[in-house]
Structure formats: structure tokens, C-alpha cells
């Protein structure tokens, strides 16, 4: 699914990385546990998380993961955006819960990593 479409499915907002809006995403993983995310060997997936702090962006950086979706309208700080921009990542926020976000994207055809 093209990122732009994904953003509209979750009624989301792109906070940085707009230039990647026409890239397509196949896989997603939802977790608030960063060590869980760090066990994934694949790259190039969307991380859906309710954990909005610098460490979630750091975890994305170490995981070679470019797309971050913060659920429940979590406040994304300037530090987070700065770090995301340094690493050429896309940050999206959605007002929906982790469960609803995951459900919507799954129904729309995004594949689970597992």
C-alpha cells in the first residue's frame, strides 16, 4: 500500500518525511516494547507504537526501519522529529488506538511481520 493511502486509512498526519509519501509499505509490526522490535530481522516495515519518546525513534534507527506510526495521538516532540529527519524517516500520527490502527491497516491489506 502506498504510504499516502495508509495515512488516510488511519486518518493520520505526516509530521516529517513527506518526500517518502509515494513509497509503498507491505509489512507492519505493532509493539510498545522496543526490545521486541529489536528482535526483528527484517527492515523496511512500518512500526506502529504507542510509545512516543526518543527511544522509539532510536530503535527505528538501529532497526533500519523508516516508517513510524504513533497511535492515540501521542505527542511527538521536536527531539524525536529532529532524530527522525537525521535518519530520513517518516513519522505519522493517528488519533486511533493501537488496536484500531492495526485492525484498519490489516483489513486494508498490510501484512503482519509474523
Amino acid at each position, binding site marked *: 500500500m502506498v504510504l499516502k493511502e495508509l495515512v488516510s486509512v488511519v486518518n493520520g498526519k505526516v509530521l516529517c518525511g513527506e518526500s517518502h509519501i509515494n513509497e509503498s509499505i507491505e509489512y507492519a509490526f505493532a509493539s*510498545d*516494547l*522496543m*526490545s*521486541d522490535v*529489536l*528482535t526483528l*530481522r527484517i*527492515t523496511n516495515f512500518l512500526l506502529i*507504537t504507542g*510509545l512516543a*519518546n*526518543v*527511544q*522509539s525513534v*532510536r*530503535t527505528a*534507527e*538501529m*532497526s*533500519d526501519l523508516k516508517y513510524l506510526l504513533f497511535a492515540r495521538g501521542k505527542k511527538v516532540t521536536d*527531539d524525536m522529529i529532529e532524530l527522525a529527519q537525521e535518519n530520513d524517516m517518516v513519522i505519522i500520527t493517528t488519533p486511533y488506538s493501537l488496536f484500531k490502527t492495526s485492525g484498519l491497516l490489516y483489513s486494508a491489506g498490510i501484512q503482519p511481520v509474523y
Partner: protein
Amino acid sequence: MVLEYKVEGGDFTQAGNVSSSVKKVLKQLGINPVVIKRVVVALYEAEVNIVAHAYRGVVTATLDDEGIRIVLDDEGPGIASIEQAMVKGYSTASKEVREMGFGAGMGLPNIKDNADEFTITSKVGVGTRLDIYIHYV
């Protein structure tokens, strides 16, 4: 090439700085991205462990033609049972650490999975030392 960094315990705003620096170096050297990910994931877990569980530490990364050795030496409470600490899901992380998204008890097992060689030694009341080696190919 030998790189040395300091890590402060308890300071989550800085956690990941070392891993990020090492990642940049490996990228510049043109190392295979799959290997880079293994190195930085292992290093990041170990770096966060110092921040989360110890007082301070020193990270030494030694790069040669074949691979990278990373030694993380910390001053801290140490680990009474390494066998127990290596079990997936075992964690003594504080509430603050859990709020940062860590404390699942998956870090040490994941470091081991990513490393070609991994040793951990610890002395209660003194500190912990991790020795990680990863081949470039």
C-alpha cells in the same frame, strides 16, 4: 581502528548515541547492511542495559579487516546469576525503564542471537563486562 565511548547510567536522553556513532562508521566503511544491523542492535541493547541497569560504562569498539569486537565494561550492581539474566523475559527493570519502552527481558538473549561470539562476565557490586564479536561476512 579503535573507537572508545563513555555511557552514563540513568540518562535515557543520551541512550543510543554510541550505537548511532558506530553505525555511521560502519556505513562509511561500506559494511553489509545486514551485518550493520546485527552489530548496532546488539550494541544498542548493551548500551541501553548500561543506562538502565548500571552507573556508568566504557564502550570499546575494535575494527579490523574481518570483523568488529565490542567490549562494554560498566561500573554497576553487577548480575548475580547470568544464567537467569539470559532467560528470555527475565527483567529487574524499574518502572522508569519500562516507561522508556525497555524491560522486556529480551535484550541479553537478543545480543547473543546477533553475535558470532558473546561472553558476559559480572561481579556483584562491581560491574558487568560484555564482549561481542561479529564477522563482516
